[in-house]
């Protein structure tokens, strides 16, 4: 059977999301990471809009706009300014080698899909596979946070994870109730601000954003 256009669109968006997640995992340059993050936000908001259109839920349009505002414009801009101020825009960080990361990523995707399978069975919504995708991208962002050695990329990974969650929320459940959406958005914003403050604190204390400075607190073995 062929799905209606909107559904195909949603699935497409899901694939894009996952793709971007992979791209972020393998991306070395911070600046590009920020762009990718913005792109992901864009995909997210478009997807939200599509869902809104498909299911005629006006409040989802609002949510899409919110996403656009915060995740595509505000946060990337903020991060951009930040890396300028900390002039680390051309920072390149060495990752543990990409192929292994990729391989792990693939495994995660498989796990995620298998987990999502029963749920998608149940989900009578238009969403079938997108939940699995969302979960996969969440796990991927997690993986990214694990592999990064610098503060900023780790934060981006964290925000990307939130994107994945949002995607799951919208596509699997047509979005959470409004008040919750607002609350979550607020938290993300404040969180981003506090991250910013931290960057400066870390910077001025260790004059570097390298996390391996933050490994003093440990048990003496």
């Amino acid at each position, binding site marked *: 059977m062929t799905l209606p256009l909107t559904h195909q669109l949603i699935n497409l968006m899901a694939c894009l999301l996952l793709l971007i997640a992979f791209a972020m995992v393998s991306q070395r340059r911070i600046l590009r990471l920020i762009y990718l993050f913005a792109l992901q936000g864009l995909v997210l908001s478009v997807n939200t809009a599509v869902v809104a259109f498909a299911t005629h839920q006006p409040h989802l349009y609002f949510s899409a706009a919110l996403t656009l505002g915060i995740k595509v414009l505000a946060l990337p801009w903020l991060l951009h300014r930040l890396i300028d101020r900390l002039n680390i825009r051309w920072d390149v960080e060495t990752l543990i080698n990409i192929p292994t990361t990729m391989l792990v990523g693939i495994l995660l995707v498989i796990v995620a899909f298998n987990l999502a399978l029963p749920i998608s069975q149940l989900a009578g919504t238009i969403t079938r596979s997108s939940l699995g995708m969302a979960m996969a991208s969440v796990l991927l962002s997690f993986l990214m946070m694990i592999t990064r050695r610098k503060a900023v990329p780790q934060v981006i990974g964290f925000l990307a994870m939130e994107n994945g969650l949002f995607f799951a929320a919208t596509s699997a459940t047509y979005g959470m109730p409004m008040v919750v959406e607002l609350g979550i958005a607020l938290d993300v914003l404040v969180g981003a601000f506090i991250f910013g403050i931290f960057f400066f604190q870390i910077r001025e204390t260790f004059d570097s954003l390298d996390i391996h400075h933050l490994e003093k*607190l440990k048990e003496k073995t």
Partner: protein
Amino acid sequence: MTEIVLVLGLPLTGALLLALRGHRPWAAELNASVSLLTLLAALALTARIVSLGPQTAGRELFFVDAFNVFLVALTAFVGFTTALFGRVYMRVEQERGKLTAGRLRLYHSMYQMFMFTMLLALTTNNVGILWVAMEAATLTTVLLVSLYRTAAGIEAAWKYFILCGVGIAQALFGTILLYLAAEKVLGAGGGALLWTHLQAVRDQLEPNVLSIAFVFLLVGYGTKVGLVPLHNWLPDAHAEGPTPISAVLSGLLLNVALYAVVRNKVLVDGALGSHLAGNLMMGFGLLSALVAAFFLSRQTDVKRLFAYSSIEHMGIITFAFGMGGPVASFAGLLHMTAHSLTKSAIFFAVGHAAQKTGTQVIAQIRGLIQVSPAVGWGLMLGSIAILGIPPFGVFASEFLILTTAMREQPWATPLLLAALGVGFAAIFSKVQAMVFGDSTAQRLPHPPALLPVFVHLLLVLLLGLYIPPYLAQWYRAAARMIG
């Protein structure tokens, strides 16, 4: 219900006021008085619930029943006493030049903000709002952990932020899945996230989804509870933050996080009809208690020591709730109360001890009862209480938990025994060394605020010897709710 408005509104307004004027000398008094008012409001709320039973308010946005109202009262109370303690403590810190007025303002406003998020998380009827509040709790405290701007402080705060943030993200995913399952039954819209509704239909929710959801929720909120192996932020944050914050983190935040876990456990058990959630919680609880006990013996920093002891006790409580049944749940609630009262009292005493000796290193704190008997005895009695020695309340709950476990989960008792034994030896050997012997402490500019310590200990003593009937009713009702 005006009480709820007050309970939530007072800290919020207090936070705003202090954000503007928090650097003034009288800010500490303002902070304390706001907390006092909050406490009064919370008591009024409690009185109402005790008299009228569970209630919803604000278009079902808030729901207060026996379970969370007692946590509300506890939170407000510990918040108040901690504010009293912080009044003196932070003043000394400031005079020793460890803090500027600006940081003090941050501290005061964030303190009230933190109280607000705690109370919101407790009183809300909406799983989503609960999540929001939990996240906000992290955000409000993270800057306080790094208040001293020391390298260690920043590191601790960073770890706290990242780990809890990630954890809480898992919890969000769990919440989404919960919603996904719920809307099948309740239809889309706000209703599908409300306890009151979910409770009603919990046995119709799709078990598959809920089991996965519970895993995410457990890992998410469990991170904030400090369950091993998700606990790694906890000792750092407790050790590096200012002592009042350590007190409220240990005494309140962990409780609230556990509250979230238990709420969800109720739903999931209802849906699955199996004991999956309970078993998971028992496993985590045992693991936490055991690992924390073995950590204890290696600690050299007094606040880290008691942070690990918090992990141990959270493990025991989680185990109790996982075991379920009227007695065990009752014991779990009792242990929650006793633990947060005792542990905060201990942190008060430890704070003063650290200020007197100018260090947190156990090896350099000696003979407290020589210089200031009150601090020494406070620390000694507090430790005795937290180590589960009667007639303090912690023992009462441990008594119930152990005896019940011996009947229902005999396999677990050796592990619990090992955890308690090792923990006892580790903590008491260090505390004895700090309290007894010849002294290294000196005098302080301000007399220590020891009233909170002994008030807490007195209450814990009361819990061990005589639990007032209405309190008992309240515990029973809550235990019945938890099942």
